[in-house]
């Protein structure tokens, strides 16, 4: 079983991110359970979305406290909240931030954290700072859980026409970005 926790603000597309990730796993024949946890249920309020995935149907309904992977869609949440809480010893975190824009948090020896300028990538391709697909591309490169093709298939399922095209581009750039810094 793998567990992924997404930190974001309501309105930033974390639920879409979780469902894209879930769908990519689903297409591989896995059994995802993707679900949100709302805070104040208002745009801008910190919230979580989660993906728990296994080779058999997932029955556990609790939130995720010890994730294998973290996606931090909005790094400003890290100021007042320990997003790294419970991250597995060999866990991987993808943080939406430009290199140098924030201090990389102290992490354990086997943990990895990648800063990915997902908003910039999204602005370039999508025209709005919705870095979710760039983050997911980075996730694929950093964790090797999924191929870029798996992610693209999920994006194609979710988006049509122009949105599909630009999100696939953003995903690829996120993927390539992590590949280039992790070589």
């Amino acid at each position, binding site marked *: 079983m793998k567990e992924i926790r997404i930190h974001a603000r309501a309105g930033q597309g974390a639920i879409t991110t979780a469902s894209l990730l879930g769908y990519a796993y689903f297409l591989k024949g896995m*059994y*995802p359970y993707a679900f949100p946890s709302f805070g104040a249920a208002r745009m801008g309020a910190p919230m979580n979305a989660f993906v728990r995935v296994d080779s058999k149907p997932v029955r*556990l309904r609790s939130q995720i406290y010890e994730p294998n992977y973290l996606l931090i869609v909005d790094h400003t949440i890290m100021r007042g909240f320990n997003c790294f809480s419970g991250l597995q010893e060999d866990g991987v975190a993808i943080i939406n931030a430009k290199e140098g824009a924030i201090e990389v948090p102290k992490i354990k020896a086997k943990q990895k954290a990648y800063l990915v300028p997902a908003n910039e990538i999204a602005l370039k391709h999508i025209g709005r700072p919705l870095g979710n697909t760039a983050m997911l591309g980075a996730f694929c490169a950093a964790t090797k859980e999924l191929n870029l093709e798996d992610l693209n298939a999920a994006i194609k399922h979710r988006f049509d026409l122009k949105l599909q095209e630009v999100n696939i581009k953003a995903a690829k750039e996120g993927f390539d970005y992590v590949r280039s810094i992790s070589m």
Partner: protein
Amino acid sequence: MKELLEGSLAVAEIVRLCKPGVISAYPITPQTHIVEELAQIVANGKLNAQFVNVESEHSAASTVLGSVACGVRSYTATSSQGLFLMAEVLYNIAGMRLPVIMTTAARAISAPINIWNDHQDVVSLRDSGWIQFHAEDIQEAVDLHLIAYRLGEDKSIMLPVMVCIDGFILTHGLETVNMPSQEEVDKFLPSYKAPYKLDVTNPLTLGPLVDPEFYTEARFALNETHKEALALIPKITVEFSKVFGRNYNGLIEGYQMKDAERVIVAMGSVCGTVKDVVDELRKKGKKVGLLKITSLRPFPASYIYEALKNIPKVAVIDRALSLGSFAPLAAEIKAVFFGRPKMPKTISSFVVGLGGRDITRESIKEIFRLLTGKEKQGEFIDLKPELLKESYE
């Protein structure tokens, strides 16, 4: 076909396949994506139904009362405060013997305001005369709607059915679901032929004033029908499994019960978490199990008796309160054994997961741990005692 679907969208899809002629709903909070999706489905011409957008849940319930009274299969959905606003009409729907089918996203009740999941809304409506099913996962939620239409519209039953699915956990969660085809659904669920309906050419009165000469018998008959439903549900689920290949008995489900010494009784999505904990503890040689209640109404007392009579220690999980009294499900489970030859040594009662408080593996393990000791009465799990010290003075 296997799909990855959000619970609400899966329910909307199965409702589409059941082909209701009228859907009515109040479209804003506390509502789910179910009716949002159904509105889209109707607008796109994928379902030939009238979608009636109304100004309150009271009106939504009244609309489907009227449409089923006219002989048309109907559907509505609500949650929480919305369910309470419907309450007056819901008792009428049951009393008038109208098989409305409704999904309820089970959620907490104000005050304080809380939109998250527990069972206070639906459990409070247990005496309304509606049949009440509780789903563990999205697949079961989908399947229970098919069973609900089949059961409610059976000429021997003619009762409304509420399918309860845990708010957010199932309504907003995505899971792999095996969606049936239209062909399969049609095979299992015939079109609705009302044995009585409002019709200007054959006038009929439904729900009139009934004086003390007759009222008791009308209520007695309603209660008798619930007993008949208890007998019919397992027959319908046998037919269900023939068509769809999934097995339920529709009343209860035992998990690792055979040699169990400690068993948790629960309803809804928490049963999944309990099953995971049962597997974990079984690996350590602990003889634990789960009894899931699918049908809260009718209450399958004799099935519960048979399932639990030889279990030494039983814990009942309530996700609702009957303020000032025993926790509601626990009280009923205990009532099953009064005056019967066999019973568990202890039946402990636990309150957990109110207003969206997360129920973790640890919460469940704590309940199993507490079962080794003395009988517990309405013990709150994951309570924060430090918050109880706060005062407005």
